[in-house]
């Protein structure tokens, strides 16, 4: 009897503990997005367990084999397994997406929140962001790629620079609202300095828009990686990324459609998954949308 009561108590407590997580898991598109992203992430992490084929091993005898039982996604012009390449390519593509999302999130959040707090910094920073945003991401990446050489590092830097302005603007807008709230004033009244207010009050309360923004940047970065690889300034071969598999397959698009198709599907699914995740997060974390979910 008492044990049952205790068990009931903990169940109740647990139900109250993660209300946001529970609401997210009830959100339809978030669930679909989560499944998509998880499948791709697991595939990337467990690539060696899923296939024992080396994604860079060339087998000239098996060139241009269409998808079959032996070659799940077919083979490319060097006889490499497209299946293995898509699996291993997920690592690089998702890594670039994650790195760009994290970097642009961190830099953008700092710039946004600091500009909101220090009005003197604001004008300068926001004009700088305008200048950066006016520069097309692709052109920026081509320039940086030319300057630093084609490497995933320069790609990450270029894409980060391209996406920082959006994040900074969104975060600045949120921080400007929060900065006027009573608890920030209350912190100031208890003697907190500007830096403390930024780090303890503004930044943590801007987390939801930041998280939402980062999922979208993740999706854009995967798409941009593909686009940049397609025009030859992505991560250099032979290491596979979804973008450069598509790029290499482009000359054989008609005869060996499978080389482009499968990484293409992977790119679409990853972008779709991240976008759905972001939509779900936005719906659940935005207090104005609480009623519908």
């Amino acid at each position, binding site marked *: 009897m008492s044990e049952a009561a205790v068990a009931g108590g903990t169940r109740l407590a647990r139900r109250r503990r993660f209300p946001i997580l529970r609401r997210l898991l009830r959100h339809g598109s978030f669930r679909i997005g989560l499944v998509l992203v998880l499948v791709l992430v697991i595939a990337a992490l467990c690539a060696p367990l899923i296939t024992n084929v080396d994604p860079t091993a060339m087998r000239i005898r098996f060139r241009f084999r269409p998808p079959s039982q032996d070659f799940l996604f077919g083979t490319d012009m060097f006889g490499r397994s497209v299946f293995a390449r898509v699996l291993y390519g997920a690592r690089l593509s998702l890594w670039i997406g994650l790195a760009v999302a994290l970097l642009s999130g961190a830099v953008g959040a700092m710039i946004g929140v600091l500009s909101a707090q220090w009005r003197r910094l604001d004008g300068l920073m926001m004009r700088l962001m305008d200048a950066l945003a006016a520069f097309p991401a692709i052109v920026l990446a081509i320039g940086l790629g030319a300057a630093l050489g084609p490497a995933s590092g320069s790609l990450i830097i270029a894409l980060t620079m391209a996406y920082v302005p959006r994040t900074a603007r969104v975060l600045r807008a949120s921080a400007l609202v929060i900065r006027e709230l009573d608890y920030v004033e209350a912190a*100031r*009244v208890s003697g*907190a300095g500007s830096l403390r207010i930024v780090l303890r009050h503004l930044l943590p309360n801007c*987390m939801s828009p930041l998280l939402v923004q980062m999922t979208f940047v993740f999706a854009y970065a995967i798409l941009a990686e593909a686009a940049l690889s397609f025009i030859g300034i992505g991560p250099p071969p032979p290491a596979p990324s979804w973008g450069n598999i598509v790029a290499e397959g482009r000359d054989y698009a008609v005869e060996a459609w499978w080389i482009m198709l499968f990484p293409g599907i992977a790119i679409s699914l990853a972008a779709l998954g991240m976008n759905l995740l972001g939509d779900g997060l936005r719906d659940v974390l935005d207090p104005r949308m609480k009623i519908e979910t």
Partner: protein
Amino acid sequence: MPPLLEVGRLNVQFRGERGWVTAVEDASFTVAPREALGIVGESGSGKSVTALALLGLHPPGTRIGGSVRYGGADLLRLPPRAMRRIRGGDIAMVFQDPMSSLNPVLTIADQITETLRLHQGLTGAAARRRAVELLDMVRIPDAARRLDEYPHRMSGGQRQRVMIAIAIACAPKLLIADEPTTALDVTIQAQILDLLRELQERLGMSVMLISHDLGVIAEFAQRVMVMYAGRVVELAPAAALFARPLHPYTELLLRAIPPVDADVARLPTISGAIPDPEERIDGCRFRPRCPFAQASCAIEPPPLLEAGNGRLTRCPPRLAA
């Protein structure tokens, strides 16, 4: 006894659309140690602006004049670092709306210990012990457990208690309470006022209670300062002020309080509205609404005059009468 805080000719001006707008004009008053000073006035009369100016928390671009003497220094001329030590340390403040005064993403413990760390260098277990003590002092039951909760689990009254706990964390000499009960239920209001009074006694601090509610002021304050349109119009010991107001504005305000023992169909009101701060009114700013206004009231701003027994009023015609 020398005053704890001495405000001299405090002027606060904001930049308006057409030049400078005066929010507080020539406010002079003192707060004695252990005294409860009430500040009354309609919204826009400059009560809160005065309080925030004492702490140097006026928005940037505000023009501020006069002096705020505290502990041998002028707070208005203190460097920012020294001012931060005063805020929350020597002078603390409680706000009107407890629902929005606590950071939703930090636990109660985080928010109380933040002040302790800032001003007393207390961290870890020592800070936590002190935080439990503080929650006990403000009568939050089961303090040790509630410490780890987030603000949304608490009611408005409890949050206001937490705000008071944060304010008294460093045993301030002066507590400024800006409409601390306005957002609360009537029953909770009385509890919070009782708590403030008890803490004032226990900690030996002065309290500056800002309110538009004359009932709250009458119950709490020893001295009362009445503000109207940025000016102090009357300053008097509470009992004397409520017994015999000297300024017409105070008198009309008191008349507008509903009587407890009789039904009144319509309460007397003060005709007109508080003037727009940008509006220029020569002479006495209450003149357009004053039933006793005379020709002389329009000529020059009336001075704040001594009226005996520690009373001040800004209405020369009535004082002469």
